């Protein structure tokens, strides 16, 4: 009995987290203008009830700015992670199904891309795109597909050798049929979990590369911008400029992690023996 309610609790936690993330995203979109409002009369205020995150040197409400920045990060994170996951799926399956040549080519490509440390690759891609929004999006997309692609390749290889697929082949079933009926249902949970678990990484990398100055332009209230600008004022004791936005970012990332791992626990047949 206890175990049944544990799984029910997991499902409710999942839904709650998703709602929270959705709320943050929407709030950020709605508060876009409020985040840019400056008011020098209220500058450099420490956190209070009125301004829970305090205000910065231009009098901007840090809480509203943070929400806005988080919302942007979430949106960018979801888009880039999704495209990354699709690339990973296509390349991983291609490597497993299209013969030795394709496998070697994809493996070589993976080794190549993984040879450049993530951040450095992001810097290069951002540089190639002239910095800015697209640089970040393309960069983050291109740097995350590798490990998921390896996982999918492994899964598809295993499936290809599995009993029921071999039987279907011997029975003369077409490749498309086998893919649809036997492989995709098995791959889908893995793929979804892998996709969701890419979100936190994508968000963190976007924030990092923006922090360095390669991503979104300084006018946008992106988290990376907030933190990099706030860094200059830390020495003057305005600690709230760094602590709260960063904490909020960590919480968002943790929420996505929670969603991903809860999803895995619920969908993964191996957790059958709980």
């Amino acid at each position, binding site marked *: 009995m206890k*175990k049944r309610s544990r799984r029910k609790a997991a*499902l409710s936690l999942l839904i709650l987290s998703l709602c929270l993330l959705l709320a943050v995203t929407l709030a950020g979109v709605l508060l876009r203008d409020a985040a840019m409002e400056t008011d020098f009369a209220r500058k450099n205020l420490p956190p209070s009830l009125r301004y829970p995150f305090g205000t910065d040197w231009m009098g901007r409400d840090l809480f509203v700015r943070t929400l806005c920045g988080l919302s942007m990060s979430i949106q960018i994170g979801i888009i880039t992670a999704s495209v990354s996951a699709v690339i990973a799926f296509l390349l991983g399956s291609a490597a497993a199904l299209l013969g030795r040549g394709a496998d070697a080519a994809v493996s070589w490509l993976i080794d190549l891309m993984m040879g450049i440390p993530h951040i450095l690759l992001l810097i290069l891609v951002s540089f190639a795109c002239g910095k800015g929004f697209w640089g970040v999006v393309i960069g983050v997309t291109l740097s995350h597909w590798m490990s998921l692609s390896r996982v999918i390749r492994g899964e598809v290889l295993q499936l290809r050798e599995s009993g029921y697929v071999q039987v279907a082949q011997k029975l003369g079933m077409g490749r498309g049929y086998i893919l649809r009926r036997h492989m995709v249902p098995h791959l889908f949970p893995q793929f979804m979990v892998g996709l969701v678990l890419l979100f936190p990484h994508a968000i963190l990398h976007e924030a990092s590369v923006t922090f360095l100055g390669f991503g979104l332009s300084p006018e946008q209230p992106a988290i990376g911008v907030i933190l990099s600008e706030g860094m200059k004022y830390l020495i003057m004791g305005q600690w709230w400029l760094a602590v709260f936005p960063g904490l909020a970012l960590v919480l968002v990332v943790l929420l996505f992690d929670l969603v991903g791992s809860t999803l895995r626990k619920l969908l993964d047949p191996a957790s059958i*023996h709980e």
Partner: protein
Amino acid sequence: MERPILEVEHLSLSFTQYRGLLGRTQLPAISDLSLRIHPGELVAVVGASGSGKSLLAHAILGILPYNASLTGALFYNGAPLTPQRQKAIRGKELVLVPQSVSYLDPLMKVGPQVRNGRRDEAARNRSRAVLARYGLDPQVEERYPFQLSGGMARRVLISTAVMEQPRLVIADEPTPGLHPQAAQRVLGHFRELADQGAGVLLITHDLELALTVAHRIVVFYAGTTLEEAPASAFQEDNTLRHPYTRALWRAMPQHGFHAPEGSLFSPQNQEEGCPFRQGCPEAREDCAGSIPYRQVEGGYVRCIREVAP
């Protein structure tokens, strides 16, 4: 007759599993298994591979996985076999001879594994002696598990069991992958252990081989025991009581190689009643009810025709 070294009474074992997103079921692996082993006896539990027989071994040793739930009673030498007792006698009086070389640490040489880490002179002498007893020379101690052939591996595994004086030996599927002479030799070693006074529980799928060394055979099918009979009863099929046992007998190569009709049992279809009733030529309506494991002359049987002829 001496007191049995091992008594298993109405052992049932099931696992907790998750169905779909939130549902939970118990998957039964063994139901109502009973048997007794006396010192000096070799009892073979014969059943299809993967039908849960290894779990019997793990249950007796007390090393079941965490999601297993167990009912029934175990007795060792007359006293209840509690988890504390299991822990105390495991590896010394109560030993397991596992199925394959994967049960040895791949990164450790054979010698230290046979001796289970003991470095003193007495242990070294003993391990050398034990290996020699099974025809393995001292160089084997310096090898790694992956360097052993199938037969050598089996003999090393037996050696680990007899480092001390075991009183109950559980042999889990010792013959798959061995050619007939090697299998015969390995089984001979187990019979030797029984002849020297230990009780031996042989878990196997090979009825033919089991008959060459066992004193008694317990027929295991679909998670439960159907019949227990002395080995001598297997010379003719009319001394066997359960229709499944007779079908097994007829399926043996020297008795005609007849395969039984009907579908294979699967645990999901578990309801009450005899699991063989779909393939049984003598099935009746009341085979679907609960059938007790009845003691008869020379053994036990679980068939409705013994209860209500």
